[in-house]
């Protein structure tokens, strides 16, 4: 198994945000997490690469326990891509600079090699011609594609996506989903929080429905859409299909 999440608990003050979440991912799988806002989806992703420390529970990347205090977390994070809802591109760097900086500073790759790699990754997300643009000069969809290229340039074993299209104007969502679909088809392992059910139907091996800090139900898109075991799952799927349509 590539990623194993076991019984993660997290509380903020009195509120228990994650109440024992467990699941696993095989290499090459794409899993989609859905659930109402405030349910702990973002917190779960952040607990996986320890951007937020979990209170309890364990996470493994292959043989290595991420949650172990003696684990070099920077080494682990370098192998796990993270794509944010708000892109978080480095504002002072060009698209090329954003993609190149991880390989250069974290992996100590030579500048020439890192530049070549960065150009390839930008090309892969269809932005070869925007290499010299600063984030403020790019549309939201382009910024998000650069941030995907930035993650790819680290050759991650796994990429975590936290609502990558939620901050985008509707007409820009498609270009980002297109990149994500092709990544999934190329065999990238991806854990995606999203409400884009078109994307889920197209490439997800499994949909995980979370509510109030627990996994209510998980299954293949077909199972989840046609015969969800829990009433809440069906209700929620209907609701987001109405709200978000079936783009992508």
């Amino acid at each position, binding site marked *: 198994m590539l990623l194993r999440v076991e019984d993660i608990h997290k509380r903020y003050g009195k509120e228990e945000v994650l109440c024992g979440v467990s699941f696993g991912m095989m290499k090459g799988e794409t899993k989609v997490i859905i659930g109402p806002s405030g349910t702990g989806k973002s917190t779960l992703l952040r607990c996986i*690469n320890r*951007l937020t420390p979990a209170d309890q529970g364990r996470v493994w990347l292959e043989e290595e326990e991420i949650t172990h205090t003696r684990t070099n977390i*920077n*080494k*682990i*994070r*370098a*192998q*796990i*891509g*993270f794509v*944010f809802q*708000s*892109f*978080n*591109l*480095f*504002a*002072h760097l060009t698209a090329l600079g954003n993609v190149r*900086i*991880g390989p250069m*500073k*974290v992996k100590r790759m030579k500048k020439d090699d890192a530049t070549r790699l960065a150009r390839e990754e930008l090309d892969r997300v269809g932005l070869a011609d925007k290499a010299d643009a*600063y*984030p*403020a*000069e790019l549309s939201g969809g382009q910024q998000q594609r650069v*941030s995907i290229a*930035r993650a790819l340039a*680290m050759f991650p074993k796994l990429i975590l996506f936290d609502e990558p299209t939620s901050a985008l104007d509707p007409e820009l969502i498609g270009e980002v989903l297109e990149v994500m679909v092709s990544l999934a088809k190329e065999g990238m392992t991806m854990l995606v929080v999203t409400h884009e059910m078109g994307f889920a139907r197209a490439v997800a091996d499994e949909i995980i429905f979370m509510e109030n800090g627990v996994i209510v139900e998980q299954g293949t898109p077909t199972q989840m859409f046609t015969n969800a075991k829990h009433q809440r799952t069906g209700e929620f799927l209907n609701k987001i299909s109405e709200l978000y349509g079936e783009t992508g």
Partner: protein
Amino acid sequence: MSFEWEWFPKLAEGLPLTLQITFSCIAIGIVLGVLLALGRVYGHRILRGICIVYIQFFRGTPLLVQLFIVYNGFPNLGITLTALQSGILALGLNTAAYQAEYFRGAIQAVRGGQMLAARSLGMSLPQAIRYAILPQAFRLVLPAWSNEFILMLKYSSIVFTVTLLDLMGKAKRLAARDSRSFEIFLVAALYYLVLVFIVSTLLRLLEKRVRIPGLGAPSQHR
């Protein structure tokens, strides 16, 4: 009111010292100011406390008193510095406190997601600060920092009190000799005005040079 031509070159002899003191104390101020700001933002309790005490002390007491503590007081501790060393040190320690506050504001103005993005790539905290936070903070701080630079250029004039013959020291000596204070200090003022103009023009050019689309407000020079 009449001016003697000889005053102009006589006062100009003080310019190199004025510039040396200003640039040296600004350099000390940048290095120490950045460290203090980082200590305040990222340090643990004790380090943060030390930084706050330092900053409060130097912002809460007169610069002149600080200069006298260094020049007149340090010898009592067995530390004897030349007048020039004292002047640079006192002004440097003082501007560091102010610069620290400007840097802190700028560091905190860098958007929170930037740190998350850097850490998620596998950067250590020092790497994230160096490659993601500071390059943005430096650009954000430039307008406020430029004002501090110009202030120090003017405040450097207090070093005449410790016998240094900077622009102000020269003027003071000349005024005592010729008993023409009004005109001579007017000439000194003119020199400061020209210096301030040159320095602020250079700083504005620097700001323009390092500006990046979408980062920081447009220049807010006085």
